[in-house]
């Protein structure tokens, strides 16, 4: 033990841009250069980054705090609708509409969290499903506001007005950079958050709620805050999605789609790694386009992969990668000796 030299994990946590963060950002920044070369297109990058933003936000509850929320689509959807409604009803200003979307989703999340933060485990999960279904049902039935099953249409990709200059992002190439900036912002913000004292408390609660409260943490308040933040950021991703699709539909709020984001996070390894959700989202969309090009039953193959992971590698792709790294390091150390 060499006194005060921090272990590598501590060093990464203290940094705002650890190597993995830089790698992710460089990777996504380079996508427009080669994506067409491999037979794909910018829009898949847009989808991946939006859903990665959503999955990272979602993982604040599942992976970081250990709260199994199975109705998170509600907040993603509330953000999408709020963005469209603000654009149609208040003003066509990107910043204002994003703010409304985040606020509406956070408010919805806070209202639900207020009812469920004293619960945990399966009871917590059931309550999130029930509330999620309520939001979905409202979106389907409140035709005059949401457009029901027909969706809320004609949502514009609003120009990015920076005061000195405004950028048009209506094309996919330009829109990609807006989404990239949003993803980078949320990823760095959440990285800082999960490694802050607040994040430490959340992971302590995940491990042992009783011990956390007996050393003096108001567990209810932490769970409430984490859930609300997660909902707000999910709504942020939802607002981007509404712009990407130029419309908002109730299906992303359904139990089915709430389940898919859980699956993405688990496949990627969100339970053990901050980056797991991003990996899971990328694998999902690339599988959809690559396997989907070969067969219409791609979801069957993706589902089988999910089952194989649950059975043989419950820590997901990130967990497998970590084990592989540890083994490789051990081999290297043995060879060096």
């Amino acid at each position, binding site marked *: *033990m060499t006194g005060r030299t*921090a*272990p590598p994990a*501590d*060093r990464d*946590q*203290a*940094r705002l841009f650890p190597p993995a963060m830089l790698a992710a950002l460089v990777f996504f920044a380079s996508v427009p250069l080669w994506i067409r070369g491999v037979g794909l297109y910018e829009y898949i990058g847009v989808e991946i980054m939006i859903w990665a933003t959503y999955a990272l936000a979602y993982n604040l509850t599942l992976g970081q705090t250990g709260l199994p929320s199975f109705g998170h689509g509600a907040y993603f959807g509330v953000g999408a609708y709020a963005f469209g409604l603000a654009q149609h009803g208040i003003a066509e200003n990107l910043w204002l509409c994003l703010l409304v979307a985040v606020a509406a989703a956070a408010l919805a999340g806070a209202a639900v969290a207020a009812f469920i933060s004293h619960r945990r485990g399966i009871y917590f999960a059931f309550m999130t499903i029930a509330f999620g279904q309520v939001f979905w049902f409202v979106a389907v039935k409140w035709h005059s506001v949401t457009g029901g099953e027909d969706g809320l249409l004609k949502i514009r990709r609003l120009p990015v007005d920076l005061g000195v200059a405004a950028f048009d992002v209506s094309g996919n190439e330009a829109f990609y950079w807006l989404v990239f900036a949003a993803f980078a912002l949320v990823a760095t913000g959440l990285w*800082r*958050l999960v*490694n*802050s*004292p*607040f*994040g*430490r*408390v959340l*992971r*302590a609660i995940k*491990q*042992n709620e*009783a*011990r*956390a*409260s*007996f*050393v*003096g*943490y*108001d*567990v209810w308040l*932490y769970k409430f*805050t984490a859930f609300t933040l997660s909902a707000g950021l999910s709504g942020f991703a939802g607002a981007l999605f509404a712009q990407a699709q130029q419309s908002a539909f109730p299906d992303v709020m359904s139990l089915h789609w709430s389940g898919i984001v859980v699956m993405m996070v688990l496949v990627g390894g969100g339970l053990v790694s901050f980056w797991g959700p991003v990996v899971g989202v990328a694998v999902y969309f690339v599988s959809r386009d690559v396997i989907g090009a070969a067969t219409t039953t791609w979801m069957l193959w993706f589902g089988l992969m999910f089952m194989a992971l649950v059975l043989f590698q419950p820590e997901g792709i990130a967990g497998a990668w970590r084990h592989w790294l540890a083994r490789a390091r051990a081999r290297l150390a043995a060879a060096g000796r």
Partner: protein
Amino acid sequence: MALFEAHRLHKRFGRRVVLEDISLAFADGRISGIMGPNGAGKTTCFNVLTGRYAPDRGRVVLDGRDIAGKKPHEIARLGVSRSFQMMNLFDEYTARENVAMALPAMRGRGFQMARAAAGIGEIRDAADAALERVGLAGRGDAIAKALSYGERRALEIGVALAAAPRILFLDEPTSGLGTEATARLAELIRRLKGSLAMVLIEHDMRFLFELADEVSVIHWGQVIARGTPDELRRNPWVQRSNLGKLA
């Protein structure tokens, strides 16, 4: 008035009365013991005193202030700390992170979201000092679940102590420990004596009678005897029961 007092506590679960009219007093700087047969209500008593359950009736007073019915985290913040009979740690965290969570400095920063926890040297130093106190110096980077049984027991007490409590409740701290680890624990408790009040539930009577200034015997949810270890050794009930044989 004693630092911590319980007045006429009653607690029942359904029809089963677990605590019936229990009154206890724990003085500052002293070691108090609680003994009694299995199922006598000792752990329930701890749970009521530290806020896991609210009493049905009665008062719990810390330094003149009624704390009965307050939440565990509120009671903990007032300076009441406890260990558990079943091991209760943050298993995935390192030993250092475990004690760091309990530090009042960390608790005060709980809602800081914009800076790195790992970068706060003050917390790191205080956590290492807390580990050293319970004999875990140099083990700070070990993951809690990878520690040996004895080390985990020591870490539990380290976590409870890191909260800088005014009164510390230890629920069967020697359970599962070998003779050597038990001796080390006794030494630790002796070293701490005077700096805070301690209350021990204990089955190891030799251990308890050696350390405690005063012992209360709980049976059928009531305090049936109370006194110094010497007084209790002469107590006919204690002598008759299995509890007395070891002492």
